């Protein structure tokens, strides 16, 4: 459904109303409307302001550790016997994932707008930690909303946020997971409109967030494109990334969208399988709807009520997806496939043993897709995968599933 005409460029969206085809938009309460218009006008100015860009680049280099390396996974490539596999090593960033790229960008914007308080939502706690980190670095008080269920299962990240000076508010409304945390953050924002900046962690929400978060994360793909050209003298055949809300994926995809020879693959959390309710495959198994400020693919019932997702990876445990991904799926420019919990867990162990890299469970989904595809591809072909986060946070979850004592 909603098959869109092939545009001249896949990189020109969104339009001035924040739409990617039928997706995106600004579905927010009137109270927030003037705020997101302000944000948009400030963002429009910042993105062409050399001073803003210079500060962003400097913090990227000295605080985050950019550029992140492009790494040829030699032993994994040998083991699979097909395409050459490269990782974009976002897990080596400060705080251990790609999330910091966006947080640094948005905190600079918050400072520029004269805001004095930061709020954020978090699922697994990676975005919460990154938000608390930049809030500490720039001296802002920070409140992180986190579902009560997630507070329980992600205790180390809760402690990290508190060490960094953030207030972590457990959300008991609804089912106490990421979508409820996002609802609660929106309720805070609508109440504290004058001083508060809402630092959204993924490429979703009302315009301009999907565009802005994408642009802050596109540094991943811009670097990777240049690095692979230096290493191989050509573009990759396939780019693969895991998709929850989709910020790491859109970050690596976007600079390749107008390279028709590059196949783009997003990997959704298939959870325990698409037949039941326990998955987070919004595009593969969901339908278009409106939630959290944008129209996009959602997991929902026939009455338009939003369902809870499930994934072994808390970072993919969200019943929606960024609107640009929905558009890329409808136009056919990108393909979205599910990977089950058990496949991701196997991939997690494979990479740890073969390359000495413990990946987060989120990119372990992308890795499982790499493991499926590489053997069917020629040895002269190239796969680029976004290794978006490190797995230290996940060792307790994995130990529990494998029946090991930590």
């Amino acid at each position, binding site marked *: 459904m909603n098959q869109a005409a092939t545009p001249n460029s896949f990189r020109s969206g969104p339009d001035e*109303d924040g739409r990617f085809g039928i997706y995106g*938009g*600004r*579905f*927010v*309460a*009137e*109270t*927030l*409307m*003037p*705020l997101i218009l302000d944000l948009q006008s400030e963002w429009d100015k910042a993105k062409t302001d050399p001073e803003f860009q210079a500060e962003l680049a400097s913090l990227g280099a000295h605080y985050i550790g950019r550029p992140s390396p492009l790494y040829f996974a030699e032993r994994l490539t040998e083991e699979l016997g097909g395409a050459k596999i490269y990782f974009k090593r976002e897990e080596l960033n400060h705080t251990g994932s790609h999330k910091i790229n966006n947080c640094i960008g948005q905190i600079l914007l918050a400072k520029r707008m004269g805001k004095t308080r930061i709020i954020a939502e978090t699922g697994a706690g990676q975005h919460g930690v990154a938000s608390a980190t930049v809030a500490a670095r720039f001296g802002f008080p920070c409140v992180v909303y986190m579902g009560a269920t997630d507070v329980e299962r992600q205790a180390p990240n809760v402690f990290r946020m508190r060490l960094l000076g953030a207030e972590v508010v457990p959300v008991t*409304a*609804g089912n106490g997971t990421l*979508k*409820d945390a*996002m*609802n609660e953050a*929106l*309720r805070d924002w*609508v*109440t*504290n*409109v004058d001083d508060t900046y809402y630092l959204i962690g993924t490429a979703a929400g009302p315009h301009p967030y999907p565009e802005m978060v994408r642009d802050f994360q596109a540094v991943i793909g811009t670097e990777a494109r240049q690095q692979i050209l230096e290493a191989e003298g050509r573009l990759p055949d396939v780019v693969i990334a895991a998709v929850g809300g989709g910020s790491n994926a859109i970050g690596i995809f976007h600079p390749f969208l107008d390279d028709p020879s590059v196949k783009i693959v997003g990997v959704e959390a298939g959870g325990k399988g698409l037949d039941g309710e326990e998955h987070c495959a919004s595009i593969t198994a969901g*339908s278009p*709807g*409106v*939630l*959290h*400020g944008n*129209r996009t693919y*959602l997991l*929902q019932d*026939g*009455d*338009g*009520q*939003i369902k809870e997702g499930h994934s072994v990876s808390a970072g993919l445990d969200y019943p929606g997806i960024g609107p640009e991904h929905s558009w890329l799926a409808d136009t056919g420019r990108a393909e979205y496939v599910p990977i089950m919990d058990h496949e991701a867990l196997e991939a997690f162990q494979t990479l740890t043993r073969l390359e000495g890299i413990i990946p987060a469970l989120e990119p372990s989904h992308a890795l499982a897709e790499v493991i499926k595809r590489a053997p069917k591809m020629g040895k002269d072909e190239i796969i680029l995968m976004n290794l978006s986060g490190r797995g230290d946070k996940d060792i307790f979850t994995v130990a529990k599933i494998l029946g090991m004592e930590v």
Partner: protein
Amino acid sequence: MTARMDTRFAALKAEGRPALITYFMGGDPDFDTSLAIMKALPGAGADVIELGMPFSDPMADGPAIQLAGQRALKAGQTLAKTLELAKLFRETDNDTPIVLMGYYNPIYIYGVEKFLDDALACGIDGLIVVDLPAEMDDELCIPALEKGINFIRLATPTTDDKRLPKVLKNSSGFVYYVSMNGITGSALPDPSLVSGAVNRIKSHTDLPVCVGFGVKTADHAKAIGAAADGVVVGTAIVAQVAGSLSKDGAATADTVSAVATFVRGLATGVHAARLVAAE
């Protein structure tokens, strides 16, 4: 436009008093009880009824209305059943305007055209859809106006004079002024600030301006009603429902009467509002 809304506000204007607009959640705590609540509202003094459409993710609502929505959904409420409530209500009351209030996704999934046709057939007079600001008018507002259903817009303290004309442009029925920046059920701000805001909006429109968010008692209703053309009460009514339920969340013999008694008290406040203003 459906005539009921304009007729009702014209009559109230002639009477020289503001409207009492009562919100309750469709299907809370179950379909039959909420129908009985709805039928009891006009007799208790409600001039306009806001019928809440439950949604799983009510991001502009406080805890009381969140829980009401969860109770309704758990009891099997759907948008189709909420329309059915209105239809059954219309069998005995063809004068009280009904405004559906909620979020866009269930309407979008139901199908906008079908929803508007069914809403008209069920006797709906207006829509308040929290997450459809003026920027999204093509989605539902324009189609609703074309079919003759009022689209009631929220104006808030963040809606400045520059933005007000845009917000008011496709509004009809009445303007719903949200008394504070926040979610439903928060504390009521100073009534004098509210009356200033109401007058500001009135300088931009001839539509009645009604005020909601934070009105919980007859005294609040009286104070707010002094300046406004209507007073909206929601959370406090929903709290009456919650307070009357059994331990396992079921309706009791008191549920409908608790709501009716409470609304009667609010009506007394609203009816006395202009006496205050005249003093």
